[in-house]
């Protein structure tokens, strides 16, 4: 039976700021013009959005990396990541220290304090804690972790936790703080971070960030039309550029799941989902 293209695809998105609804309104209008209507349902946190996906209130979820793992965990690994931004690929988290601190490697942080972001932030907490572990430091024993739980439930989408962690480093209360490479670049450029005073001590292995998640049995024709419309967005087209700048990408890419290994290890070793997981 041919797909009913008039029936909107229901897409979920988490809102960390009401302004985020503006970009989704623009994306919805773009899909409308592509004759692939979508209906966007907003969620206040990723837990509820994954609930919505698992219960099939949603067909497509714009998931954080942690929400992706959660969806996989709750569906027996049957979900698929069908698309992501170019900027979701190969991200890194930096551990930042004062240049004058004398700290030359993560091992030098032993006995010190490290500022991390929200407890559910892959980039600002889970992955950097795993990096410390991989560097031979037990985050529970060898270093003191000072966490900045800003807007827990948003998986670090809100950069407040990372920024508070850095401010804590700036005040000299900790020896290092963790932040996503994109935030290091942005804050170094806009003067939030004085790069003459602070430097990157070490970086994590690369990892991937958000993706559009669907159930394994998402109808092929609906998936094809969704992706066809999505991939029609072109940074070379001035009509699309503003929308893509707002969403922070230059191109949509096929989804891949090879970039979630570090986060997967992190949630396991940190028992993020609890003992029953």
């Amino acid at each position: 039976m041919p797909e009913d293209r008039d029936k909107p695809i229901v897409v979920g998105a988490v809102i960390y700021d009401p302004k985020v609804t503006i970009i989704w309104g623009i994306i919805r209008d773009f899909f409308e013009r592509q004759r692939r209507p979508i209906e966007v349902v907003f969620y206040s946190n990723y837990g509820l959005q994954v609930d919505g996906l698992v219960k099939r209130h949603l067909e497509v979820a714009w998931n954080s990396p942690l929400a992706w793992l959660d969806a996989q965990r709750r569906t027996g690994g049957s979900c698929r990541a069908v698309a992501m931004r170019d900027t979701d690929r190969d991200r890194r988290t930096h551990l930042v220290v004062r240049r004058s601190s004398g700290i030359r490697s993560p091992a030098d942080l032993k006995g010190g304090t490290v500022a991390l972001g929200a407890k559910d932030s892959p980039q600002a907490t889970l992955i950097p804690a795993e990096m410390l572990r991989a560097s031979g430091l037990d985050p529970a024993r060898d270093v003191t972790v000072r966490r900045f739980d800003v807007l827990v439930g948003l998986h670090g989408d809100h950069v407040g936790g990372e920024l508070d962690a850095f401010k804590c480093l700036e005040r000299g209360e900790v020896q290092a703080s963790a932040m996503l490479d994109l935030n290091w670049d942005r804050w170094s450029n806009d003067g939030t971070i004085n790069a003459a005073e602070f430097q990157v001590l070490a970086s994590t292995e690369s990892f991937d960030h958000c993706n559009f998640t669907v159930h394994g049995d998402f109808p092929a024709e609906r998936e094809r039309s969704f992706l066809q419309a999505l991939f029609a967005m072109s940074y070379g087209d001035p009509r699309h550029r503003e929308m893509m700048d707002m969403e922070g990408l230059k191109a949509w890419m096929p989804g891949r799941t090879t970039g979630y290994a570090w986060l997967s290890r992190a949630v396991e070793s940190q028992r993020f989902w609890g003992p029953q997981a």
Partner: protein
Amino acid sequence: MEPEDPRNPTWTLRITAGADGPAHAHARGQRFDVGDAVSFDEVYPHATALEHALAAVGAELVNGLRALARARRLELDAVEALVQGTLEDALAHLGVVGAAGSPALRRVHARLYASSLEPEPVVRELLEQVQARAPLWQTLRRAGVALSAELKVAP
């Protein structure tokens, strides 16, 4: 329907909306446009219903101050209000799943600047009287909105 009490008249406005664009409000012979209830878009091209409401609160205060000063033959050259309003839960207005709060106004703060040669306590006392007589200000107060006003007087 009860006969109208001439001491307490009712104001009637007609508001129309087409398929797109702002609503058009008609009050007596006046017409003005009102956009969406709320907008989070800096470049949204219409004043929203919430902005109209906050503007109305500010206008009550500045127009009220000016009128009362004139009635008391006090000198008030200019007056300006900066009005800020915050909702209890903006996400509730957007229908976000999991937003459990209310989209009601939580607080309204008005900062007033008056240019006057009168002593500041005199202008402040005027403002208190204006607030006491202002329908919207009193309605919001009764509704439990956190209302506050600060006044700066300069010659």
